[in-house]
């Protein structure tokens, strides 16, 4: 039984981590976050479903189109929902991004409909056996993609010129601007990337959990909790926190029953913050939201 709990926890947890990376990314660079991340997960799944299943666009094309559209959505979110409301240290972006999430969800209900749809996929039909427990291929893909993204982000930030520019922006907007770094464009870029990450998570989860307008709400909330536990400091920490959170949840469900899953999960979040206010892998100076 334990193996099943662990595997189930890792699969779900990597998903939390993947969405949480989006929170971490924008927070690290601009000290702002996009609370419509959950809705972006849904947008990714719904868009890919509509392209691939409804319109018959091949998956190999539907996935990149979805990622590009989500990236564009992220740029728009930053420009119109975050930037005007974060000037002068205002925290209004917090509310505006939450509002946007609700708008996106209701738009999806209008356009896509309120019915839950199944995403037929060979990746989620026959489970493969791994050390005596079953798992759908797509669920193996989730942690792999999550780790790959975390590594890629690490490399981007430490090894490339763009990463150096992003780091400069995260340290001081004014200094970065003096050095000729286009600060606004850098911040925009992180929002585009974070929304695309959320959409990627949405596409990965669609074959297992089906597609609906409200599929991202709880996921977005748990990803935020994960990002806070991880400490918002580095992608590794966030990814690891996601997997830990998934394990806590599946263990709670497996040992005590499904009714206890959210109770134990969120209680651990509170406990964690009480013990380590700056997160598991965070530094003390990080400002809490």
């Amino acid at each position, binding site marked *: 039984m334990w193996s*099943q709990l662990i595997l*189930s926890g890792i699969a779900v947890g990597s998903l939390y981590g993947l969405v949480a990376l989006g929170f971490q990314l924008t927070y690290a660079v601009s000290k702002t976050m996009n609370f419509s991340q959950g809705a972006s997960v849904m947008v990714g799944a719904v868009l890919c479903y509509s392209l691939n299943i409804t319109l018959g666009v091949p998956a190999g094309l539907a996935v990149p189109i979805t990622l590009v559209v989500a990236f564009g959505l992220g740029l728009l979110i930053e420009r119109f929902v975050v930037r005007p409301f974060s000037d002068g240290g205002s925290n209004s972006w917090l509310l505006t991004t939450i509002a946007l999430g609700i708008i996106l969800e209701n738009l999806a209900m209008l356009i896509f409909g309120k*019915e*839950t*749809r199944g995403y*037929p996929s060979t990746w*989620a*039909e026959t489970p493969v056996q791994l050390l005596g427990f079953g798992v759908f291929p797509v669920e193996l893909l989730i942690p792999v993609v999550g780790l790959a993204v975390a590594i890629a982000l690490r490399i981007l930030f430490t090894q490339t010129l763009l990463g150096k520019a992003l780091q400069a922006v995260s340290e001081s907007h004014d200094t970065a601007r003096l050095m000729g770094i286009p600060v606004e464009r850098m911040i925009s870029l992180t929002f585009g990337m974070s929304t695309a990450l959320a959409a990627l998570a949405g596409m990965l989860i669609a074959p297992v959990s089906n597609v609906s307008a409200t599929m991202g709400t709880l996921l977005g909330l748990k990803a935020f909790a994960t990002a806070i536990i991880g400490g918002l400091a580095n992608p590794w920490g966030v990814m690891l926190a996601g997997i830990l959170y998934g394990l806590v949840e599946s263990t709670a469900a*497996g040992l005590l029953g499904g009714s206890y899953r959210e109770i134990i999960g969120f209680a651990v979040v509170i406990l964690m913050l009480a013990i380590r206010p700056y997160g598991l892998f965070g530094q003390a100076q990080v400002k809490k939201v």
Partner: protein
Amino acid sequence: MAQNSLKRMLFKRRQVLRGVTGLSAALLTSKLAGCATTSGTAPAAEGDEPASSSDPIKLGLVAAITGPSAVSGESITRGLTIALEKINASGGVMGGRPLELVIRDDESTPAKGVAAARELIEQENVALVFGGLDSPVSLAMLPVFHELEVPYMGVWAAATGITRNEFDPNFAFRVSANDNIVDSYLLRYAKQELGATKVGLVLINNPWGESNQAGFEEWAPKYDMDIVGIEKFNDGDTDISPQLGRLQEGGAEVLLMVANAAPSAVAMKSLVRLGWEVPVVSHWGPTGGRFPELAGPAAARVVFMQTYSFFDAEGERPEALMSKLQEKYDVKGPEDVIAPVGTANAYDAMNLVALAIDTAESLDGPTLRDSFYDLPPYEGLIKTYDQPFSADNHDALSEDDYILVQWEDNKLVPFKG
């Protein structure tokens, strides 16, 4: 030329608009007049008034027209509409008054259902309200019906507490399954046909799940069966294999499942993950949605209870209903009937309601309620109803009326054993 014809069209449109305004004004006046009559102290006078003798009698429906269980709303609407048109074609009720159906969407949300029920009764003056698939919605609406003294007729939602409630007099009737009876039926099947003595319960975490938990716990000892575990899960969970693993450890030989289409599909996928080939016997929730699409090939493993199947249905009434379904809704055969129980229950329920109105000769809520106890025998689709309701039984269907079905290539077919 083109301009001229355009002008003529506009003129026509204006005329039409004027006509519509006049008509709606007239309707409004008659409605206000109707209001005055029904709120008066002598409801019996309504039937005698010559002016209202051909006014339509409004009946309400509060069901999931959109949302994850939208299929159920559509299937109920079909059954009610076909029965209603047949009744109207043969002269209506109470000496020539046609029936009219007013539909409201509850979106599977109790609060929306409550508001809709109140609006239907207070604004639309419906004589009775039909309910939809969601038990939590129907349970939430009960106080409204009892406060306003208007009968409720359930055609799907099966929670025990809907008809066996604490209200006296009880205004809730049902032509559908009753969880308590279903639970006994499912347990008996698991024991007698599958030879199981240990069962695991997989229940949705809401009042409907609780209603069935109570039923299973009541009946299991009577069949000498053990419930080895009760697992509850939420709509929106993506993987419940940890919970199902507990049931497997506990030695469950059969799983009894109570949930709607989307969560049931998640449960089936989790079983596939576990590679656990346990038989699954289910309440009918998944038949109100896109279960085969959501659950994939595993959908075929589940056996469901139903109150009716359009397969092998012979006789004048089933054939007439089938030909209406073909004519109005482009249904090709029994395999095309979506969510069959909704249509079948609703069809019989509408006919019983019409009989009750005729028996009562009044639209007064308490009088109409009492008349359900004095219905003449009625040969319906599901069975012949002979005194279907009494003071201690508000469920027209019993265990003998239930059947088992399964999904086969996206179609619900009778279970072949």
